[in-house]
């Protein structure tokens, strides 16, 4: 059997209400091309890309809109043919200002692709060629952080990657985009894994799936068995949040602890998101740049929760309208999952390569923070997957004693939200840590 149970148990974690049933059985639909796309140049972690088009230019689908600006950066391509209306400053999903390229689409199919490889011929390509294609296609981590994939796939020469983990845990509540991807396109996923294996010269790969997705586990395991692929195995993880966090997932499967401040490569592991893997497949085999992704539109505030393929730069309002519109009692719009996603001020924000979900939540689903004192119940400590002491840390942050917070390793916090989720006093713990981290990052290094 090629299904393995993850052997190691991480500390902490929580069991939020998953509410995946809202969209899990909805087949992925394609959004009709919106008339206006507003494509942000901050689609990824690192330096924003530099626009290479200007106002009034006519661009074809797949054409380069903005080039990578630096090592940790990625190019952005046009998801449709049309005219550049303007390049303006807008607001990104996190609330930070971003540069947006406004594209008026014309729905013609004058797309140009440089070359398509037959599916089985990619094996002949050299790892360098593959890596180059991944870089040129602007593939970035689709899970949320958006780390440029080619950087990730070029680990320093002294760090040998032995194990590849494909993250299909999708531990965030509501989200089902990766789940649908695994169910609907197992062939793309597996081929993508094989491509990564070749680039990194890795023999051992695991697809990590939480055990609340038995259909996906069964389907992939059967697919692997039918195709007689032996180096890829399905690893089932017990269902709890944050099973999909990189360091925690590595520990669950291999028992290795990524050192504080280190990278998975330090323990010979590389974790790649399912969406990213499919994007790699598209980039290498179909020569398609990363211009669209599956986004779960869900929550009790949307008429018909769905999984939608939308081009990058789609305003959230288009997605909402496509899914039957918003209900009256929507109180919060969230880009991403409810545990780590960003709340939005308007539905005018646009999708990026990292928009895994768009949630419309009603008052009864969301939480309200209060500035009440800590009652030292210790639930946050029991819940913290990084083994930090959120209660104590938040008190340092409240007193603006960021040095003490740093000494107690606030920088190790990954903002998963388990502490604030379980806090009976409803303290805004994660916000405290975000503020502290932002302050500490802005401090000159000593």
């Amino acid at each position: 059997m090629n299904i393995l149970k993850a052997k190691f148990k991480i500390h902490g974690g929580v069991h939020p209400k998953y509410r995946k049933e809202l969209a899990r059985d909805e087949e992925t639909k394609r959004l009709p091309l919106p008339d206006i796309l507003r494509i942000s140049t901050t689609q990824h972690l690192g330096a924003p890309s530099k626009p290479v088009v200007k106002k009034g230019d006519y661009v074809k689908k797949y054409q380069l809109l903005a080039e990578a600006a630096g090592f940790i950066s990625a190019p952005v391509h046009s998801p449709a043919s049309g005219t550049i209306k303007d390049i303006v400053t807008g607001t990104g999903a996190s609330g930070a200002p971003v540069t947006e390229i406004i594209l008026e689409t014309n729905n013609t199919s004058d797309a140009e692709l440089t070359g398509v490889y037959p599916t089985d011929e990619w094996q002949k390509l050299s790892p360098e060629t593959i890596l180059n294609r991944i870089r040129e296609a602007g593939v970035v981590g689709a899970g949320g952080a958006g780390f440029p994939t080619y950087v990730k796939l070029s680990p320093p020469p002294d760090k040998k990657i032995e194990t590849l983990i494909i993250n299909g845990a999708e531990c965030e509540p509501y989200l089902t985009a990766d789940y649908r991807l695994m169910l609907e396109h197992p062939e793309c996923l597996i081929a993508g894994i094989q491509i990564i294996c070749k680039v990194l010269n890795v023999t051992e790969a695991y697809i990590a799936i939480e055990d609340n997705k038995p259909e996906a586990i069964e389907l992939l395991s059967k697919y692997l068995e039918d195709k007689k692929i032996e180096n890829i195995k399905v690893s089932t993880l017990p269902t709890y949040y944050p099973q999909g966090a990189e360091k925690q997932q590595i520990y669950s499967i291999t028992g290795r602890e990524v050192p504080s401040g280190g990278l998975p490569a330090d323990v010979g592991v590389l974790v790649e998101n399912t969406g990213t893997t499919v994007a790699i497949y598209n980039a290498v085999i179909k020569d398609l740049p990363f211009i669209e992704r599956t986004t779960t539109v869900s929550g009790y505030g949307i008429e018909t929760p769905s999984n939608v393929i939308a081009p990058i730069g789609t305003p959230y309002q288009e997605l909402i309208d496509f899914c039957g519109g918003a209900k009256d009692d929507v109180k919060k719009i969230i880009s991403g999952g409810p545990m780590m996603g960003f709340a939005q001020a308007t539905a005018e924000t646009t999708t990026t390569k990292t928009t895994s979900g768009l949630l419309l939540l009603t008052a009864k689903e969301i939480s309200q923070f209060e500035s009440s004192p800590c009652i030292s119940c210790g639930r946050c400590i029991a819940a913290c997957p990084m083994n930090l002491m959120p209660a104590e840390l938040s008190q340092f942050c409240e007193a603006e004693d960021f040095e003490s917070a740093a000494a107690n390793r606030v920088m190790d916090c990954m903002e998963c939200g388990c502490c604030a989720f379980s806090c009976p006093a409803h303290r805004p713990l994660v916000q405290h840590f975000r503020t502290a981290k932002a302050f500490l990052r802005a401090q000159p290094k000593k």
Partner: protein
Amino acid sequence: MSEEQLYSVSSSPHVHSGASIHGIMRDVVIAMVPTFIAAIIFFGLNALILTATCVISCVFFEYLSRRIMKRNNTINDLSAVITGVLLAFNLPPTFPIWMAVVGSFVAIVIAKQLFGGLGYNPFNPALAGRLFLFLSFAFAMSGDWTPWSYINTENIVATTSATPLGMLQESTGSIAFLSNNSNIMNMFLGKVNGCIGEVSALALILGGLYLLWRKVITWHIPVAYIGTVAVFATILYMIDPSTNASPLFHLFSGGLMLGAIFMATDMVTSPTDRSGMLVFGIGCGLLTMIIRKWGAYPEGVSFSIFIMNATTPLINRVCKPRVFGVKGKA
């Protein structure tokens, strides 16, 4: 401000487990119901009046002090109710009402609100109230134990007016008698003299199981506390059974169960990390047994928890979990 409906924006996470301080406190109140019923069965109306007095005066003082200090009203979090019930549970059945009110005042105003209210108090308020009364009105607190004879007048313990631990201290009861099975059974059920809420180990354990089931408390403090007492008492008993009572006697006598399940587990005044909780429980157990065996007072639960409350910040400093990905001590 515009009239239109604005979306709510906050930092993540946007969902919550639903746990609240009110909910936790409500569970604690529910967990104290069996003990309350036992108190009424064994001590009748006195127990009811005493509990009502303490609860009402605690809530009143909480309201009043918050009002005077111009802070928001917190009586809805039920913590004052718990303090009231716990304080009453720690009083003998014939305790004068006015003294109970004074105890409530000390518990709520001095031990809690002057420190800033729930979350900032270094000591368990009910415990502080009890110790204040214990040291100020020593006679009322320990002198006149009304036999629990409302129910049963046949038992020999009932005719003496001392608690089992008092008898042990003053050697008025023979060790053999105190350690015999029927006496221990009576102590387990609550048919002994003592404070209204501490006598029935059975009712207290029921409440404790409820709290564990509701995940309000973890097993660490009660188990470490009671376990330490059991081990200590067993060692003493093995050394000399003629001068030391049996371990079971120590477990079911005095305020150990009440202290271990309801007082030591008070979240605010106990360590936050699991390892710290174990240290805290063990410390309480050791101190309790040391006071019981060698101290001037027959019972040491209150003092030991109070002393360990004071060490909580220190324990929190020392007992920290090892941060993920960090080698050695964080």
